């Protein structure tokens, strides 16, 4: 079948691919099992995102501007739980983006903006894991990723929702602090608890999170 190209000259595309490779985001060291489990977990997290969106659109919406940012943190879980379990380069970006897509496809209030948020939050988390050379996915790395995901999130919102044109920088600052603290608790801590509970069931055997944790009988 004939048809046009895919946009942009081949050389710029190749250089983008090479840049991705340099960053280590080729998914080469992922096994198929890790990929599909990461995808399934991301889709499940997407359902959680969607449910939280319903709660937001009904109950949490009544909380006025800077203060509702305390409850945004749950939406960081995709970029934290998936890398916490699979522990591979790209897991944060993939987890958050896929989860965001699912919550958008199930229908929420923000539509295509969900994808923008998902990509930005996933990038925030991924950058921190990358800074640790993808060798550490617990403790400082996990909570650092949560904080940066939250920080990126409020930055995007300030721009997309024109907060800078409506509110004082003081109240945007309050929103930022609440968003980051909320991400640490509702994103980081919840991911750690969920990941730990899931590992204890034994289904994650063979994945990085369970290395050295399996009890022999």
């Amino acid at each position, binding site marked *: 079948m004939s048809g046009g190209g895919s946009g942009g000259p081949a050389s710029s595309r190749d250089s983008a691919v090479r840049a991705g490779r340099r960053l280590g985001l080729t998914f080469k060291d*992922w096994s198929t099992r890790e990929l599909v*489990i990461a*995808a399934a977990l991301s889709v499940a997290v997407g359902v959680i995102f969607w449910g939280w969106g319903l709660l937001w659109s009904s109950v949490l919406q009544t909380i006025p501007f800077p203060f509702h940012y305390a409850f945004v943190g749950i939406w960081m879980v995709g970029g934290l739980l998936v890398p916490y379990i699979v522990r591979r380069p790209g897991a944060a970006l993939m987890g958050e983006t896929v989860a965001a897509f699912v919550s958008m496809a199930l229908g929420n*209030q*923000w539509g295509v903006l969900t994808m923008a948020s998902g990509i930005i939050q996933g990038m925030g988390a991924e950058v921190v894991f990358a800074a640790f050379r993808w060798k550490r996915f617990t403790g400082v790395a996990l909570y650092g990723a949560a904080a940066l995901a939250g920080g990126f999130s409020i930055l995007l919102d300030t721009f997309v929702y024109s907060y800078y044109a409506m509110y004082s920088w003081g109240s945007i600052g309050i929103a930022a602090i609440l968003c980051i603290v909320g991400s640490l608790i509702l994103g980081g801590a919840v991911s750690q608890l969920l990941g730990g*509970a899931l590992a204890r*069931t034994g289904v994650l055997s063979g994945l990085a999170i369970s290395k050295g944790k399996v009890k022999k009988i």
Partner: protein
Amino acid sequence: MTPPAPAPSYLYRRNPSIKLLAVVLVALTLTFIFDPATPAVLFCLTLLVGRLLAGLSLWSQVKPLWVFVLAGVAILLANIFFNKENAVSPALVYIGSLKITAPALWAAGTLWLRLMAFALLSLVFVKSTEPQHLVLSLVHQLRLNYRVAYSTLAGYRMLPLFQSDYQTIRAAHRVRGVKEGNGWLRLWSRTRRYAIPLLAGAVRKAGRIAVAMDARAFGALPSRTYRERMVVQPADWVFLALVLLVVAAITAALWLAGVARFAVG
């Protein structure tokens, strides 16, 4: 006998990546515009496009947007209380001691209609795109790694399984006489008791799917063939150009009429 499927609509036949690009560009334009009229016009236009080019009835487009009424109220209240222009602007009207200013109403209307337009754009996109086609197009046009793409598609297919798994777990709990608390407590206890079994079930199924994929040498070779290939046809570029042209024309016309304002500058 089932009736023959209706012919795919014009929007359905467009390349998903190009369609996505069009939605993103329109949404991006809207984030730079700070007046209620432009998003309102684009909202109506999207309704029309959804009706004529995607075959979606007006009701099916408007119905999922009801939650926005509440969002609108929340945005309005936030602006009445916290808009930074309130202190320096004259009051339009006082409700009790509450000062309502023009900038607060302007900002609330803008943001609300912007959200409505975003939501409708996404709705029309999602309803006129097969998820499978979108993923294939991301591989073929945007060079997404195909192992990631197919794994994601496998994960996405598990979505309906979550529903049936939930029913099974619920029935199992009921048979064993597990009590559910009340109100918020119930929500919490439910989440706690269902989340782990649901996730564990998903992980188990994903593992089995992965074994099946590996058995078929998925990802063993650097390149692969596709049963279906997403291509960008000249008609897709025409579509993208038309979308950009119409949006630019509307924005320019409203700006010349003195209605449109820009958020930056």
